[in-house]
C-alpha cells in the first residue's frame, strides 16, 4: 500500500558495494544525511542521527538528536531503519517512520530506491512535526510522486 509513503530512486554509476558503504557507514552518512551519525549495520542495532546548529539542521540553537533502529541489513541489497520515535521508547508502527533502501545492480551501476513509510505516525506527534519542519525533513501523508503529479497537473503549473 502506497498510502503514507514517499518513494524516490536514482541511478548511480558505482557498484552496489560502494553504494552500500555510502548509505551505511557513519562517516559517509554524515556527508549526505545528518551532521553526525552513530549507526551499526546490524538488524536491531540502536543508533542516533544528529543535526547540529549551523549544519544541515539549519539555525537551531542546539543539537537535534534523532534515534534510529536498524530493521534490516542485508549487505549490498537492503538497508532499513525506523526513526523519529520518542527517546527511550522502542520504535513501532505507531511512533516511528520506516526508511527502506533497496539496491539493485544494473548495467553500469546501481539503482538505489528509498521508500519512507509511516510518516504520519511521526507527523502527528507535535514535537516530531516541529522537528520535521525544522529539518525540512518531511511530515506528510501518501505517495509523493503520485500526489505531486496530480497536484501539479491540477494547479496548472509545474511544481518546483
Amino acid at each position: 500500500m502506497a498510502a503514507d509513503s514517499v518513494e524516490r530512486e536514482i541511478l548511480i554509476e558505482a557498484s552496489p558495494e560502494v553504494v552500500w558503504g555510502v548509505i551505511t557507514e557513519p562517516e559517509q552518512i554524515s556527508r549526505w544525511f545528518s551532521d553526525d551519525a552513530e549507526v551499526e549495520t546490524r538488524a536491531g542495532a540502536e543508533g542516533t542521527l544528529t543535526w547540529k546548529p549551523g549544519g544541515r539542521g539549519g539555525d537551531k540553537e542546539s543539537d537535534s538528536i534523532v534515534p534510529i533502529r536498524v530493521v534490516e541489513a542485508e549487505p549490498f541489497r537492503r538497508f532499513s531503519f525506523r526513526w523519529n520515535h520518542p527517546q527511550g521508547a522502542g520504535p513501532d508502527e505507531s511512533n516511528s517512520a520506516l526508511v527502506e533502501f533497496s539496491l539493485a545492480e544494473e548495467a553500469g551501476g546501481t539503482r538505489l530506491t528509498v521508500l519512507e513509510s509511516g510518516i504520519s505516525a511521526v507527523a502527528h506527534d507535535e514535537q516530531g512535526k516541529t522537528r520535521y519542519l525544522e529539518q525540512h525533513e518531511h511530515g506528510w501523508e501518501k505517495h509523493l510522486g503520485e500526489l505531486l503529479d496530480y497536484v501539479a497537473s491540477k494547479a496548472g503549473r509545474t511544481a518546483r
Partner: protein
Amino acid sequence: MAAVAEDDALWAAVADPTRRRVLDSLLENGEASTTTLAEGLPVTRQAVAKHLAVLNRVGLVAGERHGREVRYAVLPERLDEAAEAMARVAAQWDRRLARIKRLAESVQAEAGIDS
C-alpha cells in the same frame, strides 16, 4: 508551528483517493453541489459531504449558496500551495539521493584508479 499543522492537514486532505476524485470532478465542472458530485461518484451523498467538509477546512474548496443548494468550487491558490509543500519534501529526498550518488561515484572512481 501553525504552518506545519497546516501543511499536514493539506497533505492529508489531498491524500485520500475519493477526495482527489471530488477535486477532479469539481475541476472538470467548475462548480458542483454535493448531490451532483455524489451522482458521478461511487459513494453516498453523505460521504461526499464529509469529504467536501475536509477539503473546505483546509481551504482547497469553497462553497457558495445558490438558492437551496450550496455549490462548491476549487480554490486554485491553495492547490498551488499544496504542490509546493509536496515539492519541498520531494526535493529533500532528491537532494540526499544526489549526494549519495556523488559520494558513491567518487569512491568508485578512486577505486578504479587504484585497481
